[in-house]
């Protein structure tokens, strides 16, 4: 996917900016107000986990596939998590078919860092035979309709799909043969890091920008906040710059908004008593 440069008419941009300078938004929201979130999980039965997330008219779908594979050489006792994002040409008139461009790669990596930094997945529990066989968890996320803030829509879809995914308990024999049992259990997930993206337009920050706000913004800042209220991933994007005050204000805003969003997410699974690998 490559994204052709989209533009917004100057007049509309001007109108939108002057509204925001007065603390109002073109879709009637408060500056610090997220769009309505809906999350529909387990919609794809052939995936180990799946979720469709809507932020207003921005819609993302994520699916989890689990395979048994080999660990990376430098983390022989850990499972592998791979997050992949692509933009489908059906999602926007400005998307074109093709391999992921820098924008899709940025989203995948920002989402991935949020999950990884917060040690969301307990990768050590996804080790089956140390140094040899581990769970490889793929999460693929696709935007189906792009109306702004694809980072948060993708991050929430990935997280929701992981939260509701199930994998089978595996049985390892003495001679290290692996069998799949009939018992399916949730993934070892310990945190729900929530990305909150804010756009800087004029001298204001607006949360969860829609597409027209994105096309009018100077830059954006994504702060990912975990259950403990810590910041576990940050990404500034776009051509403009931020002041120190912008950033400090954004931290306060993200802490507050992330709590609201988290309440819409599937709950953390109970995983304390699960044995992922039996003899």
């Amino acid at each position, binding site marked *: 996917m490559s994204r*052709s440069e989209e533009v917004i008419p100057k007049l509309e941009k001007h109108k939108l900016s002057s509204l925001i300078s007065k603390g109002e938004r073109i879709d009637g929201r408060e500056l610090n107000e997220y769009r309505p979130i809906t999350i529909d999980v387990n*919609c*794809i*039965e*052939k*995936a*180990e986990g*799946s979720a469709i997330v809507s932020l207003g*008219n921005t*819609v993302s*779908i994520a*699916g*989890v*596939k*689990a*395979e*048994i*594979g080999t660990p990376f050489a430098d983390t022989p006792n850990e499972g592998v998590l791979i997050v*992949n994002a*692509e933009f*489908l*040409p*059906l*999602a*926007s*008139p400005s998307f*074109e*078919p093709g*391999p992921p461009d820098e924008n899709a790669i940025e989203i995948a990596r920002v989402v991935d860092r949020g999950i990884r930094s917060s040690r969301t997945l307990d990768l050590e529990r996804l080790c089956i035979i140390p140094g040899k*066989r581990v769970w490889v968890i*793929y999460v*693929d996320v*696709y935007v*189906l*309709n*792009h*109306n702004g803030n694809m980072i948060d829509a993708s991050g929430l879809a990935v997280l929701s799909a992981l939260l509701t995914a199930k*994998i*089978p308990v595996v049985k390892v024999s003495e001679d290290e043969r*692996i069998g*799949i049992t009939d018992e399916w259990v949730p993934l070892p997930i310990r945190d729900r890091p929530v990305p909150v993206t804010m756009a800087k337009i004029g001298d204001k920050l607006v949360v969860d920008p829609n597409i027209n706000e994105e096309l009018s913004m100077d830059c954006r800042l994504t702060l990912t906040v975990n259950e403990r209220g810590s910041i576990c991933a940050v990404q500034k994007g776009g051509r403009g710059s931020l002041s120190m005050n912008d950033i400090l204000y954004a931290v306060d805003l993200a802490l507050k908004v992330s709590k609201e969003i988290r309440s819409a997410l599937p709950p953390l699974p109970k995983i304390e008593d699960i044995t992922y690998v039996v003899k």
Partner: protein
Amino acid sequence: MLVRKEVKPLRLIDEDGLRTDGRRVDELRNIKIDVGVLKNADGSCYLEIGRNKVMAAVYGPREVHPRHLALPDRAILRCRYHMVPFSVLERKSPNPTRREIELSKVIREALEPALFLEYFPRTTIDVYIEILQADGGTRTAGISAAAVALADAGIPMRDLVTAIAVGKADGHIILDLNDLEDKYGEADMPVAMMPNLGSITLLQADGEFTPEEFKEALNLAMKGIREVYAKQREALRRRYLKVREEVEGSV
């Protein structure tokens, strides 16, 4: 190593003539069609048939990029059939496979006879089909969905295009193969038609058909196509009523 495995069934048709999912040989799976589900696309359609879940979107007629592809006397039609990685039991690479490239071609050629491309010179009509879940018959589901999305985009058409697969399992000619029947059956034949015109716009097959079986299968395909066609029409009618309601409500 895959973690979800299918078990090959002992037989595909039981002594009562019923299939693994309880259907009769000439019975379709459940079909659900929603029109206009994507806000950005000019036309869109979400279609379920059995466990297949398909999203189709249409953009156009619009300017062609890169420009040298534009034709002076007609629109070009471009079509992309794509499966998302988690649509199948074993994760599929997101990159287009040879299968997807071939299917994109035959689907485009199945839709093109229904369009008046000469009405829109120098433009493109782009059809995007995403398979969100696959369970046998995704190309035909994709065609039926794409035709509805084309109609939803207001693109003039000679007729809808409607598609279904027929095949052979345990010696019976069957309608609308599911994944097991596709994999373990003896033959598979996807067919697309403009039902009112009697024009066949896609025809493929593999597996073995005697000439007689081939004709029987074609006739069964026509029966199935008529039933799917009714569902497509009904979905478009619902969409039309809803839009009218919204328009009238807003007056």
